[in-house]
């Protein structure tokens, strides 16, 4: 880009009311910006399809921001059991107080019964998965009031 073309570019910008032009090619770079105080606000429609795809998967919705209430999510893929065996009492119920070491459920993966611990102290508010049902990684299993 020589000075003549640059002059032409600037006249063009004046005519078109452009604020800034930036060109970069083959190692060369040119930016022309005219005086303008106003910032360009974000958002709005353009030619680009910037809109993200709507999530195709029912993602585990983030817990609404209730202070002191946490969702306990499954640390692994497997089958969720609330009790050590079909005859036993559930490890926890809504209202149960738990300590970090309290076993709150079992997840069976590859024939192994994995004891899952609360990892926090608090109170079970709600059981979100059903006994004997498959759960995926990150699936909410319990709501716990912590602290």
């Amino acid at each position, binding site marked *: 880009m020589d000075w003549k073309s640059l002059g032409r570019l600037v006249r063009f910008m004046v005519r078109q009311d452009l604020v800034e032009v930036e060109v970069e090619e083959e190692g060369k770079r040119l930016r022309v910006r005219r005086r303008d105080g106003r910032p360009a606000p974000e958002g709005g429609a353009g030619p*680009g*399809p*910037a*809109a*993200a*795809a709507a*999530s*195709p*998967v029912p*993602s585990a919705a983030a817990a609404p921001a209730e202070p002191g209430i946490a969702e306990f999510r499954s640390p*692994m*893929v*497997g*089958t969720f059991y609330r009790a050590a065996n079909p005859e036993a009492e559930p490890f926890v119920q809504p209202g149960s107080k738990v300590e970090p070491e309290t076993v709150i459920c079992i997840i069976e*993966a*590859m024939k*192994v019964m994995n004891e899952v611990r609360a990892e926090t102290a608090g109170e079970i508010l709600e059981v979100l998965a059903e006994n004997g049902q*498959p*759960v*995926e*990684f*990150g*699936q909410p299993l319990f709501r716990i009031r912590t602290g």
Partner: protein
Amino acid sequence: MFRRLLIANRGEIALRILRACRELGIETVVVYSEADRDAAYLRLAGETICVGPAPGRRSYLDVPSIISAAEIADVEAIHPGYGFLAENAHFAEVCRSCNIRFVGPSPEAIAAVGDKVRAKEIARAVGAPVIPGSPGKIASEEEALATAREIGYPVILKAAAGGGGRGMRIAHNDFSLVNGFHAARAEAEAAFRDSSLYLEKYVERPRHVEIQILADEKGTILHLGERDCTLQRRHQKLVEEAPSPAVDPELRARMGAAAIAIAKAAKYTNAGTVEFLLDPSGDFYFMEVNARIQVEHPVTEAVTGLDLVQSQIRIAAGEPLGFRQGDVQIRGHAIEARVNAEDPLENFAPSPGRIRHFIPPGGPGVRLDTHAHAGAEIPPHYDSLVAKLLVHRADRRSAISTMRRALEEFVIEGIKTTLPLHQRLFAHPDFLRGEVDTGFVERMLGSRGS
């Protein structure tokens, strides 16, 4: 045929397997990591299961999570795709013990070909050419000379402990061998504190030519011709084509026969690839077996008209191939360009991010395999393959024309890609003439900067 199959992979190959399953009428279960939660292809799955957080070792590579997902989803088979668990004999073994069909070779065959020393022994045993060399370490100048005279110059000396070019010397005659021997020993000693060397035939300006095989579980093994994957950068394939400009029907038949013999000896089943180095005089040498579907399998699909992923699943389900070597015909010319999320101007640094604008090429002779689209996020955790652009035309010249116009059509904004590199490659006179070797891309990049 299977009623229900789990796809233990992500990205374009997960989508490729999904397509095969849908065409075969098989229900699909697709696992995903938290980083891939919003991937559009998951919408096409019958069921999806999150198996772990973003890092591959805790999700796509985590055997207990994958198997557990297969069990809770009650599938009959697992397709591993490529990478991740695809060539993991242990995983194939666990599948077997859980009574799940692994879509691939048996654990024993994976193990046999996965061990490079064993694979070479198998090749040698069936009479397939392997790169000749010293049986073990070279103890002395005299032994080096004797071996070199036996196998013929040029030869290469390599540090037994080595890598990265150190302790490596190429010799074209006795004189340079003697000099090189001492220099390489000293270098090896300095670099690895181990001066031992071995010696093998040096293949000059080789091409990378691989044979696709298909083997059913009834004992039929066929080859589907070659793919020429000579255009590589740091051993990563960039462009693959079939037929190879350096392979004629007679050579194809010989390489095919060698590949089949190796597969047979390894009791290999399902789809696989036997890789060879091909030197400018037309001699070829066995390198290794890839016990999986390859990234570049569409090249072979185009020229043979076969669907390799469907074939894999049919074979795993116990179906016979149903055709013979004579039925395999190579038609036209196919070329694939791998489009990676890498910045060619920044030494091919990965360039993950959100794709803002995406206009894929189309029209006659073009196939595109991609999980990308406008608005898609390319996560930083996995390999950088964004799209495989394949062209198939009547001859090589037309295929290159189609590739060039397709590359120019292809718009990807928001991330950097290797599209500009491909535009350079497909305009390069050496490539157009088919006169390249495995060092070509690096020389081209070196000569004008990357």
